[in-house]
């Protein structure tokens, strides 16, 4: 019903801007509000940057595929690459306000998204980032 939007790039940081544009337009096309779209864009940018930097160790010629779809009341973005296995989901989060440089990408992703899933299959990494379209107001 909503279809899927996918973009495939090589792992050159110069394409990050393009990816952000695609993800933003997709989220809006799938019915997300500006604020949710911005959050997804920020998270995907960090995840793709991590693939380039860590997964592919800076090699700018390797494939990355970013696919966006709407799944019920969620936006789901899948980031797929052939880089090294990323067992980083088990790491501890950055304690807030700690003044070190770096190490904030995963923290941003977890703060901004509602669900994160990681799978290693057939030598491929698939990271699923999900964001609810409607932010449920906490009952008080």
């Amino acid at each position, binding site marked *: 019903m909503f279809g899927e939007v996918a973009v495939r790039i090589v792992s050159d940081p110069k394409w990050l*801007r393009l990816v952000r544009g695609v993800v933003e337009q997709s989220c809006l096309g799938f019915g997300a509000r500006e604020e949710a779209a911005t959050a997804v864009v920020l998270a995907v940018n960090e995840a793709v940057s991590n693939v380039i930097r860590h997964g592919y160790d800076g090699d700018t010629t390797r494939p990355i595929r970013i696919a966006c779809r709407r799944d019920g009341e969620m936006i789901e973005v899948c980031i797929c690459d052939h880089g090294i296995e990323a067992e980083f989901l088990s790491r501890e989060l950055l304690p807030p306000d700690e003044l070190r440089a770096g190490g904030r990408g995963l923290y941003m992703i977890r703060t901004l998204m509602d669900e994160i899933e990681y799978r290693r299959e057939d030598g491929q990494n698939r990271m699923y980032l999900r964001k609810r379209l409607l932010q449920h107001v906490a009952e008080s």
Partner: protein
Amino acid sequence: MLRIDIEQLAEAAVVRVAGDADMASSTQLRDAVLGLLENCSQGRVVVSMSETSYIDSSAVASLVEGLQLATRRRVRFGLAGLREGPLQVLRSTRLIDVFEMHDSEEDALKA
């Protein structure tokens, strides 16, 4: 995609950052900020970001490094004129209260 322009005023240096600071460009920001601070002692540095449309965690890391070097060199270090996007990044990394923040470059220079 990133344009950095440094202006040395009598009392402060202003680093104007225009465009997107992401993995492709944030070393430019880091080099500019750290290079400037290495030649400062006392005084102040204002990073003016009203034209900065995007920052990622690597740009945030550069700003954190700037703040640390500034503290060591007793230079006052502030950010000015942040748009909603960059603000959301500082919020999501819980660094919003770590930096001295001003609504605009003018406010920062008066403060």
